[in-house]
């Protein structure tokens, strides 16, 4: 019998390098499966990677289409991540005190060559408000809030509120005229909270004898601003909420939200 010679297909240097790389000990210690070009490995890639594991392994065809989701939920999440990153970088330079807040922003503007972190953070924040709104609109128009996804819609509404509050608290931090007056206009509303604001209906009823319980120095607005006007207390409060409190809250809710998208049967579709 004559020897049959099998000829391996010609491999270019890039493929050779790739094949070598994916067989090194380092690579195989990180990725515990082969390249995702067989069904088995397409399952493994999703299951063995904690980030990809947010996804299911397979998904309805209609659900992967831009036509259906507009990718708005995904973009909201991506914008949140990029805001976290740029926000972190900004925190290295920014001190939330009356003395430094404004000048630190001026410094970022004047002394950082080609600096666009502040821009990326500000425009990213505007964009996130818009994408979250459009995401909600998409979910409404496809009827995706209907059973069994009622609860996830409610979680979403709370995240919408948190997104707005994040944006609102961040608006104050540059401590310029734009900032304090926008926050003054916004927070003045709290003065009129029924019963809890000193100019709100019913607040006068809450008194012990002659002593009013609700006044300018203890009402809802005071709690928000840490003072009777937008000053040092408000700056610190807004900074802490903006950099720690609200991001933590929304991150927890996002975990719940994504978990529930999967537990409720993945992206919605007709029964």
């Amino acid at each position, binding site marked *: 019998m004559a020897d049959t010679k099998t000829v391996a297909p010609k491999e270019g240097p890039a493929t050779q390098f790739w094949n070598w790389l994916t067989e090194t000990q380092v690579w195989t210690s990180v990725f515990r499966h082969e390249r*995702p070009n067989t069904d088995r490995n397409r399952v493994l890639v999703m299951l063995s990677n904690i980030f990809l594991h947010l996804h299911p392994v397979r998904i309805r065809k209609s659900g992967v289409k831009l036509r259906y989701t507009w990718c708005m939920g995904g973009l909201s999440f991506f914008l949140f991540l990029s805001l976290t990153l740029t926000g972190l970088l900004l925190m290295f330079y920014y001190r939330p005190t009356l003395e430094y807040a404004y000048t630190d*922003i001026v410094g970022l503007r004047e002394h950082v060559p080609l600096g666009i972190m502040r821009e990326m953070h500000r425009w990213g924040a505007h964009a996130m408000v818009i994408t979250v709104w459009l995401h909600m609109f998409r979910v409404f128009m496809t009827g995706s809030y209907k059973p069994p996804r009622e609860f996830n819609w409610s979680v979403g509404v709370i995240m919408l509120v948190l997104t707005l509050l994040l944006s609102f608290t961040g608006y104050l931090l540059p*401590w310029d*005229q*734009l900032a304090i007056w926008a926050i003054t206009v916004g927070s*003045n509303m709290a003065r009129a909270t*029924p019963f809890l604001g000193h100019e709100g209906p019913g607040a006068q009823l809450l008194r012990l004898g002659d002593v009013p319980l609700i006044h300018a120095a203890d009402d809802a607005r005071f709690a928000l601003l840490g003072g009777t006007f937008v000053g040092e207390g408000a700056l610190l409060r807004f900074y802490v909420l903006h950099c720690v409190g609200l991001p933590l809250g929304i991150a927890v809710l996002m975990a719940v939200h994504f978990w529930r998208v999967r537990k409720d049967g993945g992206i919605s579709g007709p029964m």
Partner: protein
Amino acid sequence: MGFIKGIFNAVADPRLFFLLAVGALLVAVWKREAVASNTVGYGMLALLGVFFAFGTFDPNFRLIVTKPDNVPIVGLIFLLLFFVWYSIREGVLNDRRIAAGNGPIEKAESDRVWVWPDLVYTELISLILCSVVLIVWSILLKAPLEQPANPANTPNPSKAPWYFLGLQEMLVYFDPWLAGVVLPGLIIVGLICIPYIDKNPKGNGYYTFTERKAEITIFLFGFAVLWASLIVLGTFLRGPNWNFFGPFEFWDIHKLAALTNVNLSEYVWVRALRTSYPSMWIVRELPGIILVLFYVLALPVILAKGLFKRYFEKLGAPRYYVTAFLFLMMMSLPIKMLARWIFNLKYIVAIPEIFFNI
């Protein structure tokens, strides 16, 4: 040129602007078969683009539209118009399929595909595009920074951040306790309630209009007309002292707006009965109080027996009353607007003694 600008300035008047927005919604819903065509959708966007391009030649228009924090709202107008149109269009296309017995397109695409590569690559590409847009935007447009904060120097107009300007616009018609606290609270509560009060089992997981006519029309009214158009109005068309200014008008600090608004109590006691006000506020405001109680408590019951009978039977009493309450609260804004525009009505109930004005 001046003539065209004059027309736009006149049309942008809050009254006309609002009525046109309502009209546009009704047309979009009624004539959705025609609206669903690409010509209408992209034509609308192109016209809007031409309008903005034309506008930027005008110094007053340019000043307000290119304010850095206003630029995203220009984008928002285009995006919103596009997505409202697009979702109506997808609904119409599906409705045609359903009518032909084929079921929605999402039904035909029920089979499963691999997330790797079908979804992760879409996500990767969206992520890259989004980053590119964000970076280019950040390079082209500098974040604003004004003079250092100065509590002694109030700018005129003082505006809240743009996403709250719909609420600030409501302050024209309602006192802060309603416009800034109660109504926003009800918006949040109302949104959370939607899945629990909407009992219609159809239209779950696909675009459709015909199967959800009322739900979609009401939501579009709240989302596109009340929320979006009031933000646009508050951002671009409100100037010093919260006066109205057309898009091509100079923001004149000294513009005077006649303030001749009248309370309901004046209509009743002074103008109709030709007497002086009763001394006790509870008597003085009785007509208004009765009107408000009627609106909140009696009207839902009356509607349940009449106009909304169908919904009362479908939803059952608890769901119906929650829905009716939320719906009437939403409608209180346009009602108060109309009352202001037609009768110059200021307050229905005015009890400044306890900061209680409606």
